[in-house]
């Protein structure tokens, strides 16, 4: 160990600190947004390890931020997240982070932007979308295709109404047969063709969701002339430590917790499970 490492090894990077839950907003039956006291700096697309004593830990992306707080939009799917849903405002959530790479927002300014998300994949993108709402001067055309399963699983309803006023938006619902006001029926992949060619060939991209969705969306845009180095994706992986030790998120040579979760497509296309 170097001297610097020796000093760093005195700090326990696995130990979480308690932070107060300021506000809880119900998004859907299974997804709530938790606003938590946090004094530090975060970047768009980064994540924290959230935990509760007795319930364990899980990696959760930042879905929002403001003065003195960060927000997490959490889906109730496992032991930890079920525990978090038992918290009330004023309760304590244990956190360590923020971890990982981030969306390169500065690089996305003053150029067209295409954002495609599915399900909770909208959560890690939300802060970057808010950036372009708050900075119209840095914005060109923004296309947002945010898909959900059905009418009960839509997220950030109020934000999305605001996005629709400033961006070109489509909100497809894959399992609804009838068209509902403000939504389309179908999958996100059905609406990519509506984006004009001149936008596709010049835009920056943010793409999130299940690996198969990321793959098919990316393939279509590349086929229409999108530049691989202008595409950014985010990977979700099992993590037990988030600091490069536990090995669970490793994809061959890449540790998603350290090098990701946000990857440029030129790197992401080399990675496979």
């Amino acid at each position, binding site marked *: 160990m170097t001297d610097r490492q020796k000093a760093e090894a005195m700090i326990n990077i696995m130990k979480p600190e308690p932070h107060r839950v300021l506000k809880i907003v119900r998004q859907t039956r299974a997804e709530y947004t938790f606003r938590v006291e946090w004094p530090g700096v975060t970047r768009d697309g980064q994540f924290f390890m959230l935990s509760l*004593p007795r319930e364990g830990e899980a990696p959760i992306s930042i879905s929002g931020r403001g003065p003195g707080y960060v927000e997490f939009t959490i889906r109730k799917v496992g032991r930890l997240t079920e525990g978090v849903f038992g918290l009330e405002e004023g309760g304590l959530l244990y956190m360590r982070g923020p971890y990982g790479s981030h969306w390169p927002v500065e690089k996305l300014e003053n150029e067209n932007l295409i954002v495609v998300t599915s399900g909770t994949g909208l959560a890690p993108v939300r802060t970057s979308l808010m950036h372009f709402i708050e900075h119209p001067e840095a914005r060109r055309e923004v296309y947002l295709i945010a898909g959900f399963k059905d009418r009960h699983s839509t997220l950030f309803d109020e934000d999305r109404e605001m996005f629709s006023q400033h961006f070109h938006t489509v909100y497809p619902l894959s399992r609804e047969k009838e068209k509902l006001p403000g939504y389309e029926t179908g999958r996100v992949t059905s609406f990519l063709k509506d984006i004009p060619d001149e936008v596709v060939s010049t835009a920056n991209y943010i793409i999130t969701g299940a690996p198969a969705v990321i793959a098919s969306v990316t393939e279509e845009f590349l086929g229409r002339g999108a530049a691989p180095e202008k595409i950014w994706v985010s990977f979700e992986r099992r993590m037990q430590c988030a600091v490069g030790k536990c090995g669970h998120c490793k994809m061959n040579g890449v540790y998603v917790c350290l090098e990701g979760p946000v990857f440029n497509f030129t790197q992401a296309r080399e990675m496979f499970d």
Partner: protein
Amino acid sequence: MGYRIDNAQMNDILARLAEDYRIFAPAWDRQKKNVRFCHVTMVEQIVLDRQTDFSTKEIYYPISQVMMRFSTDHIEDEELTDDRGILIFARACDINALGRLDRIFYDNGNPDYYYARLREKVKLALIECTEGFENCFCVSLGTNKAENYAMAVRFEEGSVLVKADDEDLAVYFSGEEEPFEPEFVQENRKRLTVPDINKENLRTIGKSEYWQQFDERCIGCGGCNTVCPTCSCFDTTDILMGEDSLEGERRRIWSSCMIPTFTETAGGTRFRKSQGENMRFKVFHKFYDFKARFGEAHMCVGCGRCDMRCPKDISFFDTVNDLNKEIPEQNND
């Protein structure tokens, strides 16, 4: 300089060392089932005629380790209770393997607190190994030799030859001087040709049908990872003191990339779905991406314990050696 020390004298020295060090060496465990690195107090306990079933890693990276204790609204670090150093009698393969674990726990991201506080106590006593065992292939990987040890020993009938370079340890030894420089095994029964996996052929080899043979053969027990001296993956879990208890502890427990659920997220997605994919992941880690990331050497040290352990008689040695046959064919595509 070296010393020849008879066993009775050596046992006295071990007793004095034990005041300052916890001493580990290959010995039968309490159940007499496995040879592991156990606490020893006498030379006669040390087992040298067979390979240890487990490696030294359980000493400085315990199988199950309490990281933190918590109560209703409080989390605090687990304190170490033993102030003594750690002295390990180990062969060159395990000494080299410790260097591999250092890369993960020190250099991959920030250094790991729990590892560092045990690891920094470790002093290594090289056991001279000139024969090797049935499954060893250390010579092929250059791990038959080691230099970074504090002392070296050759166990002979009734006495030991000792060379103690480390000044903290040198003070314990005195007596009849006899020059001693440890020798290293020069040839194993098994010889490995390290396959040329590289950036260009990585995907082709990775997606090869070669790996499908393990879909059925491998049962995903993770035994290979458990005995591997360089496997470092873990799970964390919160354990309660009782069903209704508010007190508990957060532990980390060895995990295994060969277990089917290794990549499974809370939502149920599994990124590597077959045992073939798991085997490819393990082989790539041991023989490609560890070296690509940290330079110097491949992760595997060729101890062959995984081959000894596998209940389905899958040989990791054969798996890696046979991969060579796949590479020229793949390149001709």
